[in-house]
Each structure stands twice: as C-alpha cells, then as structure tokens.
C-alpha cells in the first residue's frame, strides 16, 4: 500500500487516522496489571538496548584512554576529561591525523551543494515525468526505475574508472557531481506532482504562463512538503555517504567525516587505542543528522516509507 502512496496521501491518511484514534478506545480490553508491568519492563529493556550504545558513546568521549579500556561499561568517567574534544577541534597540540575540522567542513560543503542540486534537479525531472508531454517520457521513467535497482556497491570500481577517465578523480567535482541527481528523489517528486490537480496548471496556462513559470511559481510552491522530505533525505544521504567518497577521492584534503573516520578507525588496528577520540568524532559526525531528525521526524518517517519503493 505504502508503495503507491504519495507524501500527500500519507499525510491525509494520517490526519484521518489521528481523528479516528482520538475518537475510539482500543479494540480489546486492557491487559491485566501483572502482564502490564511485565510488558512495560520488556519495552523499557528493548528501548535501553537502542539507547545504551549512544549513551556509552557519549560518556566514553569524556574518558581517558586507560579508563575507556578498563571500564568500558561504566556510565561515569573516572576522571572526566575533554581531551578528546580538544584534540578534535585542534585546541591541543597532538591533532595528528585527525583533522576533524577539515572533515567537518568538507562534509558540510558537499552535503549542502548536493542537497541543493538534488532538490532542484529531482523536482525538475519529477515534474517533467509527471506532467510534461514529450517523446521518450515513458522510456525515461522506465530508466529511472531501472536505475533505482542498481546497487551502489557494485559500482565502486566502475565509478572510479569513469572519474579517472574524465580526469576529475580526487576533486570536489568528483565528489559532488555524480550525487547531484538521485533516482529515488525523482520518483518521490514525480509521485507528488501527479497528485497535484491539473486545473491549477491549466488556469495558469490560460493566463499565458510558460512551462518554466508554471513549474517555478505555481507548482513548486505547492510542493513544499515533498520538497522538505526530499531536502532532508538528500542531506542525510549525502552527509552519511561513504562508498562514493571512498572511490572518488584519495588525498587527505578531501576527506569527509565518513571517509576520514572510517580510515582512521579501520587503519589504526592498534587494538583498543584512542577510543575516546574515535567515539567523540563519531558522535560529532552524527549530531547534525540527529538534530535534523529530532526537529523533522515526520519527514524522516515519510522518507522511510517511500524507501519502500526505493529499491
């Protein structure tokens, strides 16, 4: 069901459900109280399983190396220290090999440009595929669907080949341009535009507006919810992107949070060393997406459900 539902459909359905929910009681009677206590314990236990790793991550960032190694589970640092964070922000001398601020700025730069590009190009393509009539449209849509099925990891070497052939390997261009369009985003936008009533456009057309004007100042403003979903998904996707950056760049100056952290963590097989630093870096790299997540959770939910058609 979710497969065909557009963002709007789902929103509408949710409003409907909300109304239904508040009006009615549960179908079956409440559990007896021993069962309820047990149930709540279980639920809290499962919840803890999901929270505890993050809590440990947060606390370990403030531990010293030996403390982290000998008391990995304790939720109170024996000797609280901000050494890891000082190293990350270059405040202390020994910031060797962890140019965190460079990673951060690369990640931010790439994510912002990619997001802007995706929002523009995906909605243009989505609109054309939903509304404009031109030869080859259905072929192109079939192409988009086919592209969605191509797994990214099978393209690691192929992508490297192409970037290298074009002579843009190890540049920002190589990091950004291939990510500027994504098929799933086009699909979301197309589904949305199809739910927009034609009458609005017809009215504008009668008023003498051109195709681009109709798209830009009539249809696009109506697409706000879909655009927000797309923005958030694109930002999350490009911020967390790893494999593409791994094959598109090599030198330290282009490392992002993901490639930098991954190389730092996997390369340093020194066994149990520098975990406060690694975990602090990992924590900071999740913060922007986490912040977005807590502010715009429902759009993530939309995204997850449209992910149902993604593959």
């Amino acid at each position: 069901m979710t497969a065909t539902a557009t963002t709007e459909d789902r929103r509408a359905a949710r409003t409907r459900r909300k109304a239904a929910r508040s009006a009615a009681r549960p179908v079956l009677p409440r559990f007896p109280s021993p069962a309820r206590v047990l149930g709540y314990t279980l639920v809290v236990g499962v919840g803890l399983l999901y929270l505890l790793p993050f809590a440990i991550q947060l606390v370990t960032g403030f531990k010293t190396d030996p403390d982290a190694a000998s008391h990995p589970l304790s939720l109170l640092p024996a000797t609280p220290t901000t050494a890891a964070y000082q190293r990350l922000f270059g405040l202390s001398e020994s910031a060797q090999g962890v140019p965190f601020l460079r990673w951060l700025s690369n990640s931010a730069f790439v994510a912002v440009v990619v997001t802007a590009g995706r929002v523009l190009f995906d909605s243009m393509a989505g609109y054309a595929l939903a509304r404009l009539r031109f030869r080859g449209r259905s072929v192109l849509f079939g192409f988009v669907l086919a592209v969605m099925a191509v797994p990214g990891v099978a393209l690691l070497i192929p992508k490297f080949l192409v970037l290298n052939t074009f002579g843009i390997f190890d540049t920002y261009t190589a990091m950004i341009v291939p990510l500027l369009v994504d098929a799933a985003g086009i699909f979301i936008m197309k589904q949305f535009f199809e739910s927009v009533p034609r009458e609005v456009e017809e009215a504008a057309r009668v008023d003498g507006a051109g195709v681009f004007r109709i798209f830009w100042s009539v249809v696009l403003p109506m697409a706000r919810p879909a655009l927000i979903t797309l923005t958030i998904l694109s930002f999350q996707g490009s911020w967390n992107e790893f494999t593409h950056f791994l094959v598109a760049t090599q030198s330290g100056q282009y490392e992002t949070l993901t490639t930098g952290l991954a190389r730092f963590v996997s390369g340093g097989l020194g066994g149990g060393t520098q975990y406060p630093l690694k975990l602090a870096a990992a924590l900071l790299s999740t913060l922007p997406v986490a912040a977005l997540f807590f502010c715009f959770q429902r759009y993530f939910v939309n995204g997850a459900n449209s992910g149902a058609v993604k593959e």
Partner: protein
Amino acid sequence: MSLRTTRSRGSAARGAPRSTGAPGEPDTPGATGTPPTARNRAPRAGRRGEGAWGWLFVSPMVIILGLFLVLPILMALWVSLLHWDGQSNPFGGQADFVGLDNYRALLTQDGLDRTLFATSLRNNAYYVLLTVPLQTLLALGLALIVNQKVLRARGALRTTFFFPSVTSSIAVSTVFLFLFQGSGAVNSLLSWIGVKGPNWFADPRGVLSLILGDLGIVDPEKPAGALANHSFMGLSWFEWLSGPSVAMCTIILLAVWTTSGTFMLIFLAALQDIPRELEEAAALEGVNRRQLLRYVTLPALRPVLFLVLTLGLISTWQVFDQVYVMGQGAPGNTTLTPAFLSYSSGFDNADFGQGSAIAFILLALILCLTVLQRWVLRERGERTGRKR
C-alpha cells in the same frame, strides 16, 4: 489554499481502489491506452514547446545518470574482460584482453581467486540468512509494540527505535567496534551473568561448527568424513556449513540493530492501515489477543511482510561499509563479502579486471532479486487491489 485542495484529492485517491505496487505506471497521457480527457481539453498552444521543455527538465538527470551510472557499468563490463592493473589506459589497447578469464577464475577454475570468492559468497549468504529474518521479526515486534494503543510514550519509543537507522553507518560501526572489543562493554555485561564472551573481532570460528562441536557431533578442529572430503568451489563442505564466524555475528547484530527501525516504520504504516472495523468485528466475536494477531493482523500484513523481506534480501547482499570499518575480511577471511572483495581486488591488489568481474556477478545477483521482488509485488498488488 492550494495545499488543502491537494490533500482532499489525496485522500480521495486513497479511498479509491488504487492498484498497489504499480509505481511504474506513469499517469500516461500520450502513451498507449485510452487518451485521458485532459489531453483533449488542453489548449493546443504551448503543446509544441512542451517537448523541448520536457527534455530540458530531464537533461540534468539524463546527463548525470548517464555519465555516472550507465557509462560506468559499460566501462566496467569492458574492464572485466581485461587483465588490467590500473596503470595504463584500459581503452587504448595496452591492457591484455583476456575474454572471460576473470569470470572463469572466479567460478570454474580451481585456485585462490575462486576460493576467496566462494568464501565471500558463503559469508554473505550466512549474513543474509541471519540478518533478514531477525530484522524482519524484530521490526514486526517493535511495530506491534509501538502500535499498542494503551502504551504510554509511544512517540518516544518510536523515535528511539528509529534513531539508529538515520545515523551514519560508519559512526555506528565505530561504536560497535568499541562495544565488542575483547574486554569491551558487551563482554563485561556478559560476565555479569557468568558468561565469558569471545574475543569477537578476532574469532574466525564458525558459530554453527562451535554449536555442533559442543554437542559432540563434529570435532570442529578436525572434521572428518564426507564433510572434509567433499568440496564445492574450492571450499570443503565443512567450511561451507560451519556458519558465520563470531566476528561476522557482530556485523549481523549491527545490521539488525540499525535497520530494524526503518522496517518498523513500514510495518507501522501498514498496521495503521488495517481497517478498524475488521478488528472490531473480530473483537465482537470474542477473539483473544493472540487470535487477533494470528487471524486478522498478520494476514493483513502479508504484502508488506513480503516487501520488507525482499528489501532486506536486496540490501543485505550489498553490505560494505560495516565490513570496511569492522573487519576488512579479517579474521581468517570470515568477514569478506563480495562487495568488499571487489573493492580490495581493485584497490589493494591492483587487479581491476577481477574486481569488475566480481562487481558484475554481484550486480547480476541483486538485479535478479529486484526483478523477482517487483514481479511478485506486482502480482500481489493486483490481487489485493481486486479484493478491496
């Protein structure tokens, strides 16, 4: 104002018997089939420009996807037929054209390449076999919990369960690397209940062989008989059947933990779509909770269940990030997956032909699964669509 119109239309569309699983169907004016009325109504003027505009609008998509998706696939197809070390120009004739040799070395020729490829397939197969059912069950369980109307703080729970899914795979892998160290948090937890945890990332022993060894059925250190004497693709039956290694299990746990949230949401949406009347009717008949689940809820979830299973099946064959951070194949090649093998053949061993060939086999495998999924979902969608 305009938004409101959209919404009401949206809910109308939802109420209508809209066929499921046909995302592929554009609302095709101009294509074959009955010409929609809109076309006739539309003013002839502007029609002509539309084609040009249409191509203009899709041109960024065509260029980028063409250059960075279609072209790479074709180039890699060519390179997979070469013996190319990454130095010369693969299109200039300096690299040896070896035909299907790279594929032969992986599939039929007895040798190290085939052993490694078979090992990676075995590892990934166990990964799939464990991850997919576990994450589906867990996601279903979580969705049922969060859907309990009597439960307090459902929103907070949903947020908690979903959060790991949105974080970067690299960051959570780092966390798990710390948690599962030999003297790490997980083993301290286990020691509370008197269990001595293994040295997770250094333990190449297969879990299945350990269990069988404990039961005294086979001696994992010296397998005998048919298990040791027969082999397939360079691995003995025992090696095929020894199960995922302890190290691989941590990656499986990580995958289950991170993906269950997303699938929970898909289940949740489906659960909330179950018509209330259906549940109420069942309640009137005096069913208990288990019967309600067994006879009403689960059957209603079947299409979504299939969707989640196939999505899981497709994505688990692509595991790469976690392997890169947590093992890179170690210990004893037991965390090697085809995706990582392809990468390391190319970039570590400078054998890009071999790497491309592995990538192609993987691509074919995943595309087959996708085609299967779309085909079955379409079938099911039509059936349920008719039923409604």
